């Protein structure tokens, strides 16, 4: 067994063990932290499988943002449990969790799926694919195959993806019963001088890294989504530290930013249908400009959506039972 094979085997075993612990660990906080570790191991696996774009996205989104949202959700459920402990009347007794009636069919389904997937893994097609060459031949003037697939060949997927992100923000507003997208600092958690100083150092770096990733996407691993999430993380940090900077962003600006990516994509699709022959077709000679505009809009939308989803998930003062400032 060579060194690389050994590394892959150890990585695969770590993924399975960490995944098991994430799924079964009785302490949910531990499970949430392990979920972040799981995401970072996944990022390593993506690197091993020659998918650096996916690795970047996994590290930023899968491990980073989802992990933070989980820990945050858990913490607030605990706050609310304390806040609600006294006045709530005992809930009526009802169905219990999972009994053998659930476990047996679920186990059977999982076992069947496992069998099917193992069989599929044995018979993974290994005939060399000509797709990389075909993409490279037709992606002029773009230089990055993954960016070309996202914005030239399968841009409809990307359009719908931005639509789903927008729907998540709208769904959050509906469920939370909110009208606007303000991120008033007055709602943010108590201030912490250490955090404030750290954030002041980190945010400019995060903005630079975000811009760098966006630019990198034109010829190497990187791109709008990775850049957007890094920018969004900077926004989350700013808000957590109670920095006044975010107050300058008015609610209508948040709304515009959240809708920007989907809006620009829709406008491009409509313009393509009207003038250039097909939805999401670009005029000849301006492909790189169009792709840059779409990527920039997508990055801003992803960043704003991440911030708004994070802030919107926080209970405001009327719901958190005095947990605010």
């Amino acid at each position, binding site marked *: 067994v060579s060194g690389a094979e050994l590394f892959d085997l150890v990585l695969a075993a770590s993924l399975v063990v960490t995944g098991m612990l994430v*799924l079964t660990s009785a302490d*949910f906080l531990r499970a949430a932290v392990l979920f972040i570790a799981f995401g970072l191991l*996944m990022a390593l696996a993506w690197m091993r499988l020659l998918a650096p774009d996916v690795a970047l996205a996994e590290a930023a989104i899968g491990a980073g943002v989802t992990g933070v949202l989980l820990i945050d959700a858990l913490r607030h459920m605990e706050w609310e449990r304390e806040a609600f402990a006294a006045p709530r009347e005992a809930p009526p007794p009802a169905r219990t969790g999972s009994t053998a009636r*659930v476990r047996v069919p679920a186990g059977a389904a999982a076992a069947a799926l496992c069998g099917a997937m193992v069989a599929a893994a044995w018979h993974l097609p*290994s005939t060399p694919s000509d797709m990389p060459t075909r993409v490279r031949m037709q992606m002029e003037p773009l230089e990055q195959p993954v960016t070309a697939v996202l914005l030239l060949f399968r841009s409809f997927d990307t359009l719908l993806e931005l639509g789903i992100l927008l729907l*998540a923000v709208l769904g959050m507003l509906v469920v939370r019963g909110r009208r606007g997208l303000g991120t008033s600092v007055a709602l943010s958690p108590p201030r912490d001088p250490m955090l404030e100083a750290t954030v002041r150092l980190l945010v400019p770096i995060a903005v630079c890294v975000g811009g760098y990733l966006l630019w990198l996407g034109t010829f190497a691993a990187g791109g709008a989504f990775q850049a957007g999430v890094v920018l969004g993380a900077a926004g989350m940090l700013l808000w957590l530290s109670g920095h006044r900077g975010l107050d300058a962003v008015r609610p209508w600006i948040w709304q515009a930013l959240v809708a920007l990516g989907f809006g620009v994509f829709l406008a491009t699709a409509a313009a393509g249908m009207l003038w250039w022959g097909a939805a999401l077709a670009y005029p000849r000679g301006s492909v790189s400009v169009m792709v840059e505009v779409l990527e920039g809009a997508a990055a801003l939308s992803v960043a704003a959506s991440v911030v708004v989803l994070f802030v919107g998930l926080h209970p405001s003062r009327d719901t958190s039972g005095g947990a605010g400032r």
Partner: protein
Amino acid sequence: VIAQHQIFAFTAALLVPLALYVLLTVPHLLRKIVALNVMASGVFLLLVSVARARAAGEPDPVPHAMVLTGIVVGLSVSALAMVLARRIYRETGDTTFYQAEHEPQDEETRE
């Protein structure tokens, strides 16, 4: 000797069913969201393994782009699911779909 893409395809073949089982049997809503995420990671792992298996040099960028899209969709779904879970908790004081007679604490340890 086992090929690299097979190692990760087998990993996916373990992760997806495990996560499916937990998704179906564990009542705690946050755990269901985590299980959904692990399941998605497993599916992505299989997709990228297919791209790796068929790579003669550079791997196929199409599955990579699909996985990238999938990761962002997964984030959107998780975020919305968490808002819904919190709303359910606020309305019922319960972290599950059922009005369980146990405290949420019992729900956790029973797993």
